[in-house]
């Protein structure tokens, strides 16, 4: 323990004596750790806010979407979900309280909207009346569609609160007309603010009656790909409903046994899980990149330590003449490498958190940065490992020096 303390002391002195060089030596580590902590802090911040939002979402809703298996995609056969699928679900599956189709029209110029001289883009969705119940959203002013709007394919819409701002609509936009593509559309309702997920606003949307959406997509074709959202009456029967939907849809799509599903049935929880999977992937990839930069940083440390050993050959000779054992010398240089690496890690964590917090603060709509303890511990652990692994070769070289040769070294 005493030897360790002495080695620590002389390592600290040596680092202090070569302040600037020590900084440069640690730079690789500093940059590596800074980048990982910055990325992790931002991603984890997002993850936290997403999870909080999903927690508020109804967990008894199901979303069915088309899913093209890889093999089919290669052959150019893309799966679709159609009106007929929704009808068959509605007719043949028990335990469902609300069903709505969702038709996204945000491709091409369909997403373009304008009001007077203002233009913007938005997510335009054609939906059934049950959309409100399934998604737990409500108009804050005006009204929602009626069956009559649907049947007559009226050009009326409910908008998210962002649209008011984006198009510079009057404070109370009910009754105003604006352009969706080439169609004048009347605003009949404004939906309550929903907030943000992943830093993207959830309030930049326009809801149209389903039939109207089909109309302004300029198509009466039956082959549009839709999503089906529904509410399950009883949470406990969720799995039963899911498997029933699966059976019905497989039959409807005439899938043979052994063929994969060409659709996916997802719960809100699964959506959250897939978001988290993305987050985890981003974290893992950034950790991998950092692993590489820590490796490079470690090589940098080894390099400088080797130079330092050569430069201090005479000093090592003197210390050996004064009675330093091989272990004394080994420990001193090893601890020096370890300290350089850990100091780099410390600076890196601080800078990384600062960078993450700065990015989160500057970019609008970003959730606050969050550095989990495991990331800090992992960074330090990695730095320590790098310090020991890359410090051992120079330290061994120093300890093996022959005292006579070392004393003679100029």
């Amino acid at each position, binding site marked *: 323990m005493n030897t360790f303390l002495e080695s620590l002391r002389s390592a600290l002195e040596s680092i202090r004596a070569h302040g600037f060089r020590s900084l440069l030596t640690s730079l690789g580590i500093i940059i590596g750790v800074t980048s990982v902590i910055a990325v992790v802090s931002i991603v984890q911040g997002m993850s936290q806010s997403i999870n909080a939002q999903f927690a508020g979402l109804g967990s008894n809703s199901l979303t069915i979407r088309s899913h093209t298996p890889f093999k089919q995609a290669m052959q150019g056969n893309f799966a679709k979900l159609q009106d007929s699928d929704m009808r068959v679900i509605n007719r043949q599956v028990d335990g469902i309280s609300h069903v709505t189709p969702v038709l996204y029209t945000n491709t091409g110029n369909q997403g373009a909207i304008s009001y007077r001289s203002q233009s913007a883009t938005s997510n335009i969705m054609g939906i059934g009346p049950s959309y409100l119940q399934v998604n737990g959203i409500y108009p804050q002013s005006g009204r929602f569609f009626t069956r009559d709007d649907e049947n007559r394919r009226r050009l009326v819409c409910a908008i998210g609160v962002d649209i008011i701002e984006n198009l510079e609509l009057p404070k109370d936009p009910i009754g105003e007309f604006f352009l969706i593509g080439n169609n004048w559309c009347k605003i009949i309702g404004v939906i309550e603010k929903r907030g943000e997920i992943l830093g993207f606003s959830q309030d930049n949307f326009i809801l149209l009656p389903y039939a109207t959406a089909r109309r302004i997509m300029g198509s009466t074709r039956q082959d549009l790909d839709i999503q089906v959202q529904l509410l399950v009456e009883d949470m406990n029967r969720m799995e039963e409903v899911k498997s029933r939907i699966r059976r019905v849809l497989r039959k409807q799509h005439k899938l043979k046994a052994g063929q994969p599903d060409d659709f996916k049935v997802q719960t809100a929880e699964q959506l959250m899980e897939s978001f988290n999977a993305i987050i985890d992937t981003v974290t893992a990839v950034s950790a991998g990149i950092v692993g590489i930069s820590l490796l490079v940083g470690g090589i940098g440390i080894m390099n400088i330590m080797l130079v330092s050993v050569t430069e201090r050959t005479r000093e090592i000779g003197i210390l050996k*003449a004064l009675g330093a054992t091989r272990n004394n010398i080994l420990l001193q240089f090893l601890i020096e490498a370890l300290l350089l690496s850990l100091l780099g890690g410390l600076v890196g964590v601080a800078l990384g958190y600062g960078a993450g917090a700065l990015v989160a603060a500057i970019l609008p709509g970003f959730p606050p940065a969050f550095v989990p303890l495991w990331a800090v511990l992992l960074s330090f652990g990695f730095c320590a490992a790098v310090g020991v692994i890359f410090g051992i070769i120079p330290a061994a070289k120093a300890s093996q020096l022959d005292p006579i040769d070392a004393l003679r070294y100029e």
Partner: protein
Amino acid sequence: MSTASAEPVVIQLRDVYRTYTMGDQVLNALDGVSLDIKQNEYVAVVGSSGSGKSTLMNIFGCLDRASKGSYVLNGTDVGDMSENELAKVRNRQIGFVFQSFNLLSRATALKNVMQPLVYRGIPLAERKEIASLALERVGLGDRMGHLPNELSGGQRQRVAISRALVGNPDILLADEPTGNLDSKTSREIMALIDELHDQGQTIIMVTHEADIAKHCNRVISLEDGKISSDEKQVKSR
């Protein structure tokens, strides 16, 4: 060889060879050296360059090992010792003084003198105390906080001597201690070393200057790795 004195033998060399092989050439830097050195002797090792006197000093100081023959230091055969044991011997039984001082350039005078005590596991406060006393003994009590490059040559050698003695070694090994100093400073340093001898220190000194060798009471001459003469003399100052 000296006989009469009753002082205990500190160093005993028996038929010591130190052989270097360079390619197919075999060079005997030491070619069958045998000698005894007793406590409180003041020995000068002289010889021309290449005579083996530095090799002999390195063997005395346990920095090097004999290729053949035995070296008994304070009754213990050094030949079978491990690297770590040799380091311990250097730390406790030997004090080195070099021609080029060999101070740690980044450490103050005090820290230089404290360094050997580090390897004995003496706590910091105590180390400081012992080292300060050692520096005061060589007249550098007011230079403790100075770095080596802030000291004159004579002062540096005093720090080095103080560092060599701080652990109370059995033998002080000095390799051309005045080689880098002017004549006035040389005289001062030699006076200091003489004084140490008077206080009972065993001293072995390598030198090629006859003036310096005169301070000693025994002169061993080396030639081609062999002892060519070994004479006692009355030291003159």
